[in-house]
């Protein structure tokens, strides 16, 4: 357990070292007598490196994990499902268009969070999507993703039906 706790900050050390190496290419643009664009990131990365080393040392010395959050059990299946839904939402919004993707996301995320009544799910998904379209597309002129191909046609038809276009 201690090895795992120490490994995380050591990964931070590794990341800081790799980024410090990556900052090498920035030296070419600095003029003589000037600190250059690499100075500040290097200062910050050195600080990160030292802080990660200190954290690793602290974890190595600490007999038990402190903090309440770590002791709270995690429903892993639910967490993974929630992350998958978030990723799918962002991934599909440009393809399906904001209205379709949002309605689908609202229904599925609410179901995952524990809402079981189909009427509530349907009303929330449709009602919220239409309200958001009115507020952000019609009033604020925000060009939310319309989708691609047939999905775009569908979104535009929906906009026309709602009087947004």
């Amino acid at each position, binding site marked *: 357990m201690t090895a795992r706790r120490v490994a995380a900050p050591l990964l931070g050390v590794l990341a800081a070292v790799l980024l410090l190496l990556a900052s090498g290419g920035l030296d070419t643009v600095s003029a003589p007598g000037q600190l250059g664009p690499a100075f500040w990131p290097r200062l910050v990365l050195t600080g990160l490196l030292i802080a990660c080393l200190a954290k690793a040392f602290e974890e190595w010395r600490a007999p038990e994990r402190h903090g309440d959050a770590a002791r709270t059990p995690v429903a892993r299946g639910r967490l993974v499902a*929630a992350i998958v839904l978030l990723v799918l939402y*962002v991934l599909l919004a440009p393809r399906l268009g904001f209205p379709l993707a949002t309605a689908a996301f609202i229904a599925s995320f609410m179901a995952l969070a524990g809402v079981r009544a189909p009427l509530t799910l349907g009303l929330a998904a449709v009602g919220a999507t239409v309200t958001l379209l009115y507020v952000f597309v019609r009033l604020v002129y925000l060009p939310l993703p319309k989708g691609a191909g047939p999905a775009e046609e569908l979104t535009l038809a929906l906009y026309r039906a709602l009087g947004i276009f």
Partner: protein
Amino acid sequence: MSEIVAGLGVGFVNALAPLNFLLIVGGLAIGIVAGALPGITMLNAIVLVLPFTYLMGIVPALLLMIGVYCGGVFGGSITAILFNIPGDPMNVPTAWEGYAMNRRGEGQYALGLAIVASAVGGLVSALFLAFLAPPFAKIALGFSTVEFFAVVVFGLASVSVLGQHSMAAAFVSLFAGAFLGTVGTEAQYGVERFVFDVPFLRTGVDFVTVLIGLFAIGEVLDQLAAGTPPPPATRGPRTVPRLPVRALWPLRGSLARGTAVGIAVGGLAGAGATVSSFVAYGLEKQVAKDPGLFGRGHAGGLVAAESANNGSTGGAMIHLLTLGIPGSAATAIMMGAFLIHGIQPGPLLFTSQPEQVYTIVAGMILANVLMIALGFAAALSFATLMKVPAPILNTFIVVFCFVGAFALRNDMADVWLTMLFGIAGFFMRRWDLPIPPLVMGIILGPMAESYFLTSMVAHGNDLTVFVTRPVSAVVLALSAAMLLWPIIRHVRRA
């Protein structure tokens, strides 16, 4: 003195004219709503109302913008307290304390404190602007990027406040945030840093995506994965914010310190409300009798941060009206309004057009008084949302975060970043890595870099300039004390 009082009298008569009064109220309402919506900042709102001011006179135009300015600085605190979503970076310390208070059933009290502290901070700063603007402006003009750097470092040093369980973890988080702030095209040399051929990283990581992701999405995932019950306030029959006039008396010290910091830091050109609220929060932790309670819902921390960010409004206006130099991004847009109307703000404004100046100052005083009523109404409306069951509310929070992130640049890349930071926020919570220092790093880090490098260019890379200039030396010494004190205390205990 009598001239100022007479001038203010005339100013109040003008500001209370029906059209002017309506513009202040309208501006406040727009500002509060814009400030409360993540992704739409107070600055966006001021820019949006600017075209509407073209057809107005300079006084109505500025009264509208002042309303938006004062309301916008406060608005973000409502969603910060209720949903852990700071509307603007300046509301981040409010989220730290206010949301913790909400979770233990003190949401109404926290909202009331935020409203009154914001109004008092803004009101005192407006009075300061009326009576002491010219001498203060002279002093502030003597400050350079050296002093600004010291003030930002003081804000960053308050990270010592935020390492509840581990100082090392707080610093890991702070430096990670400061590193994220370096990603993108560097301003002085125009060189790309840590972009790795990813096109959208050229413009950097917008800190709003970090804010929304870490605080809002991270919290939603945390609640969903842990099955955490919703904040107690959501289960109550009615979430009505109450104005804690009596309860504010024991917090008068925090209120006074926050307001003073707000005026002083806001009065430094370029520092603004965000630095003010971080510095006030850090200072409050240092002087508090119960510093261990910070981060767990400390009323003093909330009051100090809220009074500071609204206190900065008057400070920023001092530069604009007395020197013709905008003290913040918001006042820079107001300067644009002056110039559009053919008026050059500056030292002559007080003598050549005193009626206009005092009307603007009176409008600012009125806006802060009216903010109590409007802030109360807005908080009441938003608080009604707390009655919505957590599964529904959390789903809508995610959708609003999507829209808010997309609205930043109309780019899905920002939405991706928000969701990624949301997932990171969940794991940071689980691994005891404090989130606030990371947010401080990404907001204040680039400011520190800019002030530091400019100071170095101006002083021939002479580092001693930071300790030879008295104000900078004192502020940096205080920062060092703030950082070292917890370590010394820890070593003593050990």
